[in-house]
């Protein structure tokens, strides 16, 4: 019964699919037909609530009984506003698809903060769908952001985004089910795990990580970020037989967490911190020897957001070193905030040595970014991915 309850509560995929399926198709078609509407109203600096915050599952700290989040509670207490925090983002592409009809038509998306991975953040910034972040309202964030995260081509001066966390894409597995430790991307293709393997939707993670495997095998000469369409085709052709034979059971977003919980997934392509923070005791994450994909998820304020002031307050709040340390310690991802390592080391030496939060130099050397494709290429690659996904 508990199983059922938690599954139902944690079934965002189904909820999303269903809601989209019933309502959004109509809305999207209608909006697209209307074409671009009026431009959204300007927003003020005043900190008013509720702050509508869309984030990924397993991406915020929770109390012992998992009923609330200390970070959000403290934020509410400090500013006296409500936070409507929803774990609505399971995959970049799917969430983009819910935003595109609204933001494309110049309408308010209903969110004040959204969190998207680099390539998708760059795409929505290019599309002009993002509000500028007022530097005067975010002094802590500007002061505390790690230097290597600054100066990105799509937003060199931190006007449009601030990183939420960075993380890696690697191999996750349940030690009890697999019966051995997995160390390679290649381990995902072990015949013993047939039907119990899942990969990630879209091309950004799956094609990059399998690209690294093919590079190690010598079939591809380029790193993921430099892969050509022909290389992507090779990755597709490598994975396809495993899909057809039923070896790869599914392509998932964050819902792999539920499949690990129910035992239906033994080994999968996963994001680094999730299994440590929200998985079972036998669930492990490995930085595969072929290499790991590194990415950053970024906070963005969508155009026309009704509570921009509150969103900026939240961005500044999570860049406070103490708040950032508390967050990173719970979710096991790489914090974008300077001094978090020292802050955590003060109380927990074991955690301060955890590779998930603070990758060692050796691990970091083996981390590679995802491809950042322009629209035309993106559509071609997405078609390859959707062919694998069967729909």
């Amino acid at each position, binding site marked *: 019964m508990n*199983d*059922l309850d938690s*599954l*139902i509560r944690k*079934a965002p995929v*189904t*909820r999303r*699919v*269903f809601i*989209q*399926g019933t309502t*959004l*198709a*109509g809305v*999207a*078609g*209608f909006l*697209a*037909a209307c074409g671009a509407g009026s431009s959204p109203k300007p927003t003020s600096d005043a900190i008013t609530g509720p702050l509508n915050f869309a984030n990924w599952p397993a991406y915020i700290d929770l109390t012992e009984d998992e009923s609330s989040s200390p970070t959000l509670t403290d934020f509410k207490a400090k500013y006296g506003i409500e936070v409507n925090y929803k774990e609505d983002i399971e995959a970049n*592409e*799917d969430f983009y*698809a*819910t935003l*595109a*009809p609204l933001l*494309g038509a110049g309408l308010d998306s209903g969110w004040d903060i959204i969190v998207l991975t680099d390539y998708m953040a760059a795409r929505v910034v290019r599309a002009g769908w993002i509000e500028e972040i007022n530097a005067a309202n975010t002094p802590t964030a500007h002061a505390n952001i790690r230097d290597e995260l600054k100066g990105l081509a799509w937003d060199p001066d931190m006007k449009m985004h601030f990183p939420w966390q960075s993380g890696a894409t690697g191999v996750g597995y349940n030690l009890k089910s697999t019966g051995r430790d997995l160390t390679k991307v290649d381990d995902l293709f072990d015949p*013993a*795990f*047939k*039907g*119990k393997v899942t990969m990630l939707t879209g091309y950004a993670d799956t094609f990059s990580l399998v690209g690294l495997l093919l590079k190690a095998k010598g079939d591809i000469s380029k790193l993921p970020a430099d892969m050509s369409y022909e290389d992507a085709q090779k990755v597709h052709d490598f994975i396809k037989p495993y*899909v*057809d034979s*039923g070896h*790869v*059971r*599914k*392509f998932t977003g964050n819902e792999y967490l539920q499949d690990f919980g*129910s*035992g*239906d997934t*033994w080994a999968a392509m996963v994001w680094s911190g999730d299994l440590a923070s929200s998985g079972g005791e036998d669930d492990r994450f490995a930085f595969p020897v072929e290499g790991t994909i590194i990415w950053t998820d970024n906070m963005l304020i969508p155009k026309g957001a009704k509570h921009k002031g509150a969103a900026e307050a939240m961005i500044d709040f999570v860049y406070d070193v103490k708040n950032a340390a508390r967050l990173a310690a719970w979710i096991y991802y790489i914090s974008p905030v300077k001094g978090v390592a020292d802050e955590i080391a003060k109380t927990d030496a074991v955690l301060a040595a955890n590779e998930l939060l603070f990758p060692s130099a050796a691990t970091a050397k083996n981390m590679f970014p995802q491809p950042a494709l322009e*629209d035309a290429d993106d*559509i071609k690659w*997405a078609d390859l991915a*959707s062919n*694998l*996904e*069967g*729909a």
Partner: protein
Amino acid sequence: MRKTLRSRRAIPYLLMAPGLLWLLLFFVIPNLQMLLFSLSEGTLRTGFTTPPEVFDWENFTGGIDQFSGNFRNSIVYGGLATILCFLIGYPLAYSIAFKGGRWKSLLLFMVIAPFFTSFLIRTISWKIILGNDGPLLGLIRDGLGLVPANFSILGTPLAVVGGLTYQFLPFMVLPLYISIDKVDRRLIEAAQDLYAGPWRRGGAIVGGVAGALLLIALQLGLGYTSATGEAATLTGLVVGILIGAGVGGVVGGFLVSQSFIRVTFPLSLPGVFAASILTFIPAIGDYVNAQLLGSPTTQMIGNVIQGRFLTQNDYPIAAALAFILMAGILLSIALYARLLGTEELTGGTA
């Protein structure tokens, strides 16, 4: 005088108006919109070129071409689910109608009871039942040791067809019950008085052939022959056919009477027609079961339409596929009605 006459003539139209308006707003207009999209070019991100600038019939031909596998999955899974629903539903409806007695309403209530739970929650509970740690695998893998450790049911066609069968069973049972319950008992008594006994030899032959055909359809449709989930092989096929023929023969020969074949079943045909259409249409267009219980190879056309609309934002292809699906369903129903004959549809002359 003339005034009242005119207003009286207007009454039927007034009564129809809400329904017609509803259809116009939520069926005709969206469909015209879809038709325009299905002939357009582009995606949400690149912008659309709509008729009359372009008439892109490529969406239709290319759509069929690219997604023929998904169409095939839809037809096969929807068809198998309908057949299984019929095989489970007819005896159930028959028993409730003829043997239900004072428990009739309770039994009917139990048939529709699952509808009090959300469709999604029912599908998710199937995920648990069929899952790795679920009771079914617990029995056949851990208890009886029939299958290897990494055997899964989730992610196979069997799971999808099973889910569809479960979801749409009430759509089958209720119309069947209504038409079976309407059968005049005196006709059956008359048939028995006229020496309509057990079906014996005819039943054994018909049942045997039907059973064999069903097993062939199941094995080819699901790609299974053995309990261990191996792909279809000739030996497996033959064993399956023999089992199906044996079971069908026994059922046909011993359980079915001539009065049923000659009286009850023909009189319930309108119900069979309505029930199978009510089951087949939602089953063929369903995408939730394939999404939650299936794998990439079991995705149905509904999944493609959903993905094209909502993930790729490729409205033209999605609209074209939706039209193809709609046309296909209409066509097959027309054909089906033709085969079953129109007078059975209206209830026959009995």
